[in-house]
C-alpha cells in the first residue's frame, strides 16, 4: 500500500523495520527529522531499542561502533560538519571491519556555512573504507537501507546510505513501506562472528606493526571489491521480495542507442529523467545512475558506456585545486580503454543551488565542444565575482 511520507519519516520507519538494538544520534540539519522520528517511535513503544542521545557526532559514531562490536545491530545518521567530525571514527569502524549502517543526509561542508544539499560530506570520507550507496529518491532510500544491513553483515563492511538533504529528506512523496514480515524474511538477526563476548574473549583494535599493516589493508580493499557481488545480489533478492530494484551498482535508462551518456548520482537523477522526456530535441541520451560509488563499479561502468562518444559526468562536489571527484575516477576507469568516450565533467548544485529541468539541454549543448571539458562548475555565475576571482 503506497502512502505519502516525508523522506525522513520513511527512513525512520525503514530503520525501525530493521530492528536495530542501539541507535545513537546527534542532531544536525537536515538529518534531524530522521532522528526525531525514531525517537518518537521509541517513545510510543513502536521501536524497542536503546536510543542514546549523545553529545556530539563523534560520540554518535563511537556509540554505534561500541554497540555493533558488542553484538547489537546499530544505527546512526549525520550530515556535513557532523560527518567530518566523526570521520576519524568512520575510518576506525571500517578498519575494524565492524558491520554498521548509517545515513548521510548529504549537505555542503563549510566554510562557507551552508545548510543546503550537495555531496561534499560523503565525498570527503570516500577513502574511509565504507560502502557508499546513493539514492535517487526516497523509495530507493528505504529499500537501500534495508539491503544495507544485509550487505554490511555479510561482508563485515560498514555501509553509508547517502540521501540528499532537504531535497529528499524533507520531500513528501509516494512511498511503499515494506511490511515487518518482508524485512524479517530478508534480514536475519544480527550476527557478528567477532562480537565481544565474555564467554569467548578476544581483543579488537590492536596495534599493527609494519609487518602486518599492508596485509590488513589488502584484505580490506579486496573485501570492498568483492562486495560488489553482494550489493548486486542484495538488490536482486530484495526485488524478489518487494518488486522493486534499485539498480545494483549502476542503473541505466533513456535511449539505449544513444551515443551521449549523462552520468550522475542522487536526487538529480529524478530531474534528469523528466528532463530527457521534456526536451527530446536535446537528446537522445542515456541516463546512467551511479548507485554504488564505493566500491567503484569500474567493470559495470565500462560495459554500460561501451559505444558512447561522449559521457557527461555531473557531480555534486569537487576537489578544490584539482577538479571533479567522480569525473576523475571515471576518467581513470577509461584509461587505456580503446574508443573511450570524450568525458566532460561538471559540478552542479553546490550548496543547494537548484538544478532546473533545462540543465539537460544546456549540458548536451556544452558537450558539443571541440575538446572535452575537463572540469567546470556548470551553474556558476561569474558575474557575481570580481574579475580577479573569475
Amino acid at each position, binding site marked *: 500500500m503506497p502512502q505519502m511520507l516525508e523522506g525522513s519519516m520513511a527512513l525512520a520507519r525503514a530503520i525501525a523495520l530493521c530492528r536495530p538494538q542501539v541507535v545513537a544520534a546527534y542532531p544536525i540539519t537536515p538529518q534531524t527529522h530522521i532522528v526525531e522520528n525514531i525517537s518518537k517511535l521509541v517513545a510510543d513503544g513502536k521501536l524497542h531499542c536503546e536510543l542514546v542521545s549523545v553529545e556530539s557526532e563523534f560520540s554518535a559514531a563511537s556509540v554505534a561502533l561500541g554497540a555493533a562490536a558488542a553484538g547489537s545491530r*546499530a544505527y546512526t545518521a549525520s550530515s556535513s560538519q557532523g560527518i567530518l567530525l566523526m570521520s576519524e571514527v568512520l575510518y576506525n569502524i571500517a578498519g575494524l571491519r565492524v558491520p554498521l549502517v548509517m545515513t548521510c543526509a548529504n549537505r555542503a561542508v563549510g566554510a562557507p556555512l551552508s545548510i543546503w544539499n550537495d555531496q561534499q560530506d560523503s565525498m570527503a570520507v570516500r577513502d574511509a573504507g565504507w560502502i557508499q550507496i546513493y539514492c535517487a529518491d526516497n523509495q530507493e532510500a528505504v529499500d537501500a537501507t534495508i539491503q544495507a544491513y544485509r550487505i554490511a553483515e555479510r561482508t563485515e563492511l560498514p555501509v553509508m546510505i547517502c540521501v540528499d538533504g532537504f531535497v529528499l529528506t524533507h520531500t513528501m512523496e509516494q512511498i511503499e513501506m515494506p511490511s515487518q514480515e518482508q524485512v524479517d524474511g530478508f534480514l536475519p538477526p544480527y550476527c557478528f562472528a567477532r562480537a565481544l563476548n565474555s564467554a569467548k574473549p578476544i*581483543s579488537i583494535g*590492536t596495534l599493527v606493526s609494519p609487518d602486518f599493516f599492508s596485509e590488513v589493508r589488502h584484505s580490506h580493499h579486496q573485501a570492498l571489491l568483492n562486495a560488489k557481488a553482494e550489493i548486486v545480489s542484495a538488490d536482486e533478492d530484495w526485488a524478489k521480495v518487494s518488486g522493486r530494484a534499485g539498480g545494483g551498482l549502476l542503473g541505466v535508462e533513456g535511449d539505449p542507442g544513444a551515443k551521449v551518456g549523462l552520468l550522475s548520482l542522487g536526487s538529480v537523477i529524478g530531474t534528469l529523467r523528466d528532463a530527457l522526456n521534456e526536451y527530446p530535441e536535446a537528446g537522445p541520451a542515456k541516463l546512467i545512475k551511479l548507485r554504488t560509488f564505493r566500491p567503484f563499479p569500474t567493470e559495470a561502468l565500462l560495459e554500460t558506456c561501451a559505444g558512447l562518444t561522449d559521457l557527461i559526468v555531473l557531480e555534486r562536489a569537487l576537489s578544490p585545486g584539482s577538479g571533479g571527484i567522480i569525473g576523475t575516477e571515471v576518467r581513470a576507469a577509461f584509461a587505456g580503454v580503446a574508443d573511450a568516450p570524450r568525458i566532460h565533467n561538471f559540478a552542479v548544485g553546490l550548496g543547494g543551488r537548484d538544478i532546473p529541468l533545462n540543465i539537460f539541454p544546456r549540458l548536451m549543448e556544452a558537450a558539443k565542444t571541440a575538446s572535452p571539458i575537463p572540469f567546470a562548475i556548470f551553474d556558476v555565475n561569474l558575474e557575481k565575482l570580481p574579475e580577479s576571482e573569475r
Partner: protein
Amino acid sequence: MTTETISITDLRRTQPRFSGIESGHRACLGCGQALAARLVTESAGPDVMIANATGCLEVFTTPWPESAWRLPWMHSLFENAGAIASGMEAAMKAQGKHTKVIAMGGDGSTFDIGFQALSGMLERNHNVLYVCYDNEAYMNTGIQRSSSTPHAASTTTSPVGKERMGKRHLKKDIITIIAAHHVAYAATASVAYPSDLRKKVRRAMAVEGATFLQIHSPCPLGWGYNDALGIEVARLAVQTGLFPLIELERGELTGAMPLRHPTPVSAYLKMQQRFSHLFKDDPRALEELEHLQAIANHNIEIYRLRGDGIDALDSEGSDTVRRGGSRWA
C-alpha cells in the same frame, strides 16, 4: 554461528584466580599503569567488557597478533572510550546481558581529548565504570604535558628554561568535575594502596550506573625515578596530600584516607627528575616549592585529611576524617 552462555559462577570456577591481563606484555619495567590495570581486572572479575582508549596500556598489551587480555576488549580511538563504552553498555542492555562495561584511559584521553565523551557518558548515567590511569602526562607519545600534569612538573612541552619553571598551570581537578555530574560513585586511588584500590573497584562494580576511578599510576620514565621505587613514590604522593585518596557519592564527600603525619612535599618531589629543577640554586625554585606545598595544604584542609582534634587520629578524629571532616558532617 554458535553462542555460549556461561554463568558468572562458572566463569569464576574455570578461572578461580582470575587474571584479566597476562604477563608477557611490553610495558616498561616498573610501570604503574600495568600494575593498576592488573589490580582492577582482578577485582572486577571475568564478566566484563573493556573499552580502552589509545595510550600506553593498549599499545603494550596488544602488539598484534598477540594480546595480553583475557577479557573481551576493544580499542577504538584516543578520545572516545566514554562513547564506545556507552555503546557497549547499550548493547548489553538491549541484549538483556549483565556483563559490566569498563572504560579505560590515561589522563590524556580522560582529562583532555576524551573529556566530552566521558562527560556525556556520565550525564546519561550509563552503567559503566570508567577507570583513568593517571600518570600525569601524555606518556606514550613521549612525555608531553596534559591538563593532569602537576604544577611545576617538567615535560617535553613544559620544559624548564630561562623563562619557565615547568608547567605553569595547575593539575586539573578532575575528580571534582566528575563528582559534579552527581554520579553514584567517584573515587581516587593509588597503586601504593592496593587493598584500598581493590575495595574501590568492587564498590564501583556494584553500582548500577556510571562510576569513575582515578588511579595514580607512577611512570618511571616520565617522572624520572629508579623503576624499583614506584610504590614508594606513589605512597609519598598520597602522604604529602598532593594526591588525596577520597570517595565522592552524588557529589558529596563520603570517604577520605586520613594522614597521620603529612609528609612535606619536598620528600616526594626530590625523588623525581621531573621536579629536579626545584632543588637547584634558583630563587624561582623556592617559590615553586612553596606553591606545591600550598596545594598539598589546601587538599589536606578541604578534604579534612587530618580531622579536627589535637590528635587527628583519635577514634573520634579518624571517624570525622572518614566522613570527610566536620565540613561535611
